[in-house]
């Protein structure tokens, strides 16, 4: 096959991988926002925290799979603590208070990470099964990236099933459209909120583990990837999963092809795309007017 075509395809795979990871983070943010109206600025910090947990678990047990299972659960646990002991107490202060509180929490988490793990970047090895290349149709693909895409799709499927086929999903969807009514029907909304917050941070945790072997684990991770995820949420529309999915993929592709063609200004592309979208639709592609 023509080498330039194969290069485009492999670049596209890289882009989609990154887009999928962005989507995992953004969907967690979106679920929390859609449900509770809180934009969790500590989300990126949780994402990074999970990458560090993964490093730690791999260092202790020697198995990436243990990291994949345990790290997001630890992260979700901390997310639940945040909801239960901080956010719930300040519900009277308003959205600005929530934003600033989560900002403070993010600062503290990032500070603590530097205290515990230092500032140098820590490697996480790709498990042996996923190290090689998979060749399909005469082209070689790095199998870890394909694994990340598959993993994200599985999580997406799981989320869809959870939201549309279970009782919890029904409650969550009902609470998104009318929280007070659901509360009046005798459903314990605070507990549901806690679960949703836990699931949201769990999703960020999965993304953190997935990205650890690709970019290594370092303190700038939250700024670099987390910022992109926030831009995805703003562009796709707050609370819209479909918007987050489409915009994540677009951004992933923009960033991977951007790096190839205009390497210095790749981040500008994404923000430029956001500016154009917001100039036309101030609430994002799939956002609803407040």
């Amino acid at each position, binding site marked *: 096959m023509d080498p330039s075509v194969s290069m485009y395809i492999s670049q596209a795979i890289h882009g989609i991988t990154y887009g999928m990871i962005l989507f995992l983070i953004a969907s967690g943010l979106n679920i929390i926002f859609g449900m509770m109206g809180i934009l969790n600025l500590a989300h990126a910090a949780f994402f990074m925290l999970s990458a560090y947990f993964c490093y730690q678990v791999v260092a202790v047990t020697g198995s990436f799979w243990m990291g994949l299972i345990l790290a997001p659960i630890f992260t979700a646990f901390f997310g639940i603590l945040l909801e239960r002991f901080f956010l719930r107490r300040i519900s009277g202060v308003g959205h600005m208070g929530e934003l600033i509180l989560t900002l403070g*929490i993010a600062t503290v988490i990032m500070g603590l990470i530097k*205290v515990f793990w230092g500032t140098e970047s820590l490697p996480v090895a790709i498990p042996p099964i996923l190290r090689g290349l998979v060749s399909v149709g005469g082209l070689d693909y790095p199998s870890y990236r394909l694994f990340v895409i598959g993993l994200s799709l599985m999580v997406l499927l799981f989320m869809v099933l959870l939201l549309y086929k279970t009782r919890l999903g029904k409650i969550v969807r009902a609470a998104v459209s009318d929280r007070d009514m659901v509360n009046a029907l005798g459903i314990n909304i605070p507990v549901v909120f806690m679960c949703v917050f836990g699931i949201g941070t769990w999703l960020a945790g999965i993304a953190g583990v997935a990205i650890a072997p690709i970019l290594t684990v370092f303190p700038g991770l939250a700024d670099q990837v987390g910022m992109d995820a926030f831009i995805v949420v703003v562009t796709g529309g707050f609370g819209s999963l479909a918007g987050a999915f489409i915009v994540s993929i677009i951004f992933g592709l923009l960033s991977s092809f951007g790096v190839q063609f205009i390497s210095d200004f790749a981040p*500008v592309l994404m923000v430029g795309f*956001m500016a154009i979208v917001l100039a036309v639709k*101030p609430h994002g592609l799939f956002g609803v007017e407040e």
Partner: protein
Amino acid sequence: MMNTKIKIILWVVMFVILVFLPRMFGIYYTNLFVTFAVFAVYAVSLNVLLGYTGLLSFGHAIFFGAGGYGTALALKHIEGISLLTAIGIGFFAAFLLSLILAPLVTRVSGTAFSMIHLAFGQLFYVLALKLRHVTGGEDGIGNFPIPDLSVLWMFSVPIKREPVNFYYFAVVILGLSLWLLWYFTKTPFGQIQIGIRDNAKRIDYLGYKVYQSKALIYVVSGAFAGVAGSVYSLFQNMVSPDASLGIVVSFTPIMATMIGGAGSFFGPICGTAIFQVIEEITHHFTDRVELVTGAILVLVIMFAPQGLAGFITSVKQRYFSSPAAGAKKEET
């Protein structure tokens, strides 16, 4: 009138302290005070948006940086430019930038407003890093010439490497900016912004144009942040992405405003002072200053969401005023 007398005495005392501060405390604390003054003006300009209009911007550093880069570039490239013109250029750069952004950002409010600014802040940070031939990339623009300040075209005062002279110069410029901002919040138009914060729809029904008013406030806020940034770049004789455009620069005034109390004019000034004292002290013990400031931010939101100003007001209401006066306070 006892009150006016006390006020006059207070003003005189403050004036005397400001005049003799370099003699009394030495260079280190004089420079610390200039930093404080810069960030106080910056925080007040943010508070015009945050406290008065209810718009939380996570990217106010855009304007701080625009002022800094505007002044630095002007001094570097334009021969024989005067100092005040250079500051004017910094002001104008921030003004122009906020004018361009205003139509885009005033259409949204709440969380979307904050997040758009986060993204734009990042955009300008990356641009400053990557447009190396203009901005000098990571190193920024350092050691640019600073001309002498000519007073009334009669005699000139050297500013570069003269911290005491610079102190007086900065205090005058920043004091003037503070006074202008204070005046702005007291005008009838300044009162509309409080209305927009509390009930935008009602302001709309009263016949005021909400978007246009927001845009005007936004431009004022941005332009004065530009003045602060401009003076800061002169003070450091250096402007760089991390010191003028980084995300920390956007968050610092938010923290100061929250600690001091959003919505009160002098809250952010007190907040900046407290914030700086905390930073000074923690620097002696640990390098992890952001850990301490983050924790303080969390504590403030949890236990005193109105900041120091709100705390003082509630204490005053409870112990020092008649019930009627307390009720009046709550109304305003």
